[in-house]
């Protein structure tokens, strides 16, 4: 068994075992492999799982093993997940702002929506659809971005699959 194959198996087992997104950095460090080797292993795994009931999902330098979206309908008898809950108009607007404008502060979200977004942000945070980090340029405020759960909820493989992503995406810089 050569090194790449061996590592590939262990990484597959690790992804299966973890049940959550695993950082690229952790894998690289632990397996003492470089970026190229990691990319190669992940694309091999992706190929293995193409058209299968399980998929490999990459998001912001993490990788996770998940069920393939087209099996969701049949799994719903067995699963009860928050991801299945509907989104209100306020949630949809706020998610759209965050997904297409991330990272974005609460003030910016409020400004675009024209209303206070405190409650809806809290709701989305609890549901795990968005996350907040300290704003790199202002430690008193948070910046919001979407999570892997949001991608999973929509059954996407990556953020770029969002509708008209290239056309409308605008990554704001934090100089407000």
């Amino acid at each position, binding site marked *: 068994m050569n090194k790449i194959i061996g590592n590939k198996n262990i990484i597959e087992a690790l992804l299966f075992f973890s*049940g959550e997104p695993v950082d690229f950095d952790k894998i690289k460090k632990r397996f003492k492999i470089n970026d190229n080797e990691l990319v190669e292993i992940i694309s091999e795994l992706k190929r293995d799982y193409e058209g299968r009931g399980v*998929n490999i999902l990459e998001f912001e330098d993490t990788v996770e093993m998940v069920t393939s*979206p087209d099996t*969701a309908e049949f799994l719903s008898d067995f699963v009860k997940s928050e991801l299945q809950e509907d989104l209100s*108009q306020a949630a949809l607007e706020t998610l759209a702002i965050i997904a*297409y404008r991330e990272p974005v502060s609460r003030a910016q979200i409020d400004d675009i929506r*024209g209303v206070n977004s405190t409650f809806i942000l809290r709701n989305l945070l609890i549901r795990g659809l968005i996350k907040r980090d300290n704003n790199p340029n202002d430690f008193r405020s948070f910046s919001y971005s979407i999570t892997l759960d949001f991608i999973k909820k929509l059954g996407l493989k990556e953020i770029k699959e969002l509708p008209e992503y290239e056309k409308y995406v605008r990554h704001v810089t934090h100089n407000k």
Partner: protein
Amino acid sequence: MENTAYHHIKISQFEGPLDLLLQLIEAKNMEITVVSLSEVTDQYISCLKDIKEVCSEDLANFLSIISSLILIKSKALLPIIEIDKDILEDADDLARRLEEYRIVKMLGKKIQELDKRGVISFSRLADKKLRSIFYPPRNATANVLYKYFDKIFKEIFVAPLVLPQKELRELIKLEDIIKDLAEKTQNGSIKNFSDFLNKDLSRLEIIVTFLALLHLLKRKIIKAEQCGIFGEIAISKF
């Protein structure tokens, strides 16, 4: 007549001041421009009067948009008056904000379509046989746990929810102001707009009052004349 026309446009639920404005413009199949903003001003105000439940912060947002709309509308109604450059920028800014909101709302609808497919990737449930390794942290002593819980307790369990004050809501009794202004003008107890303004009025209240004035002008209930920019506005029975 115009008033009845407004009510034909059914406004579905809206998410806030910009959403209401957008729905009014879209109901008329208009593009978002300074002109279309000016055209929906009256409707916007009449819709706002019907809103019963709105918290003070949202009300302030509504009022700030109303004030921009009124400035835009005043410019349209009274093209002779010199308008400050800032005000024109304000109008452009409102149009720009509304366009941004329109895009975001449209993208939200597209996200909803994706969501409606019910196509979801699930993570694995935590392993039932998850073997735990007992590995206590150094930094979690009984006192540390106490400290953290005490902080949470004070924030969440004890701190009363600060409810928005009612003051702002009281402020926008547009209908009352219109009635009052009409009455006082009719019976001649005031002759100038400034007579009607109380010294203690906030900027927002002045805006609302000015709005009442515009309404009465439009309905031809009163006449108004202004001598010079920032000059006194003389008002009288039509």
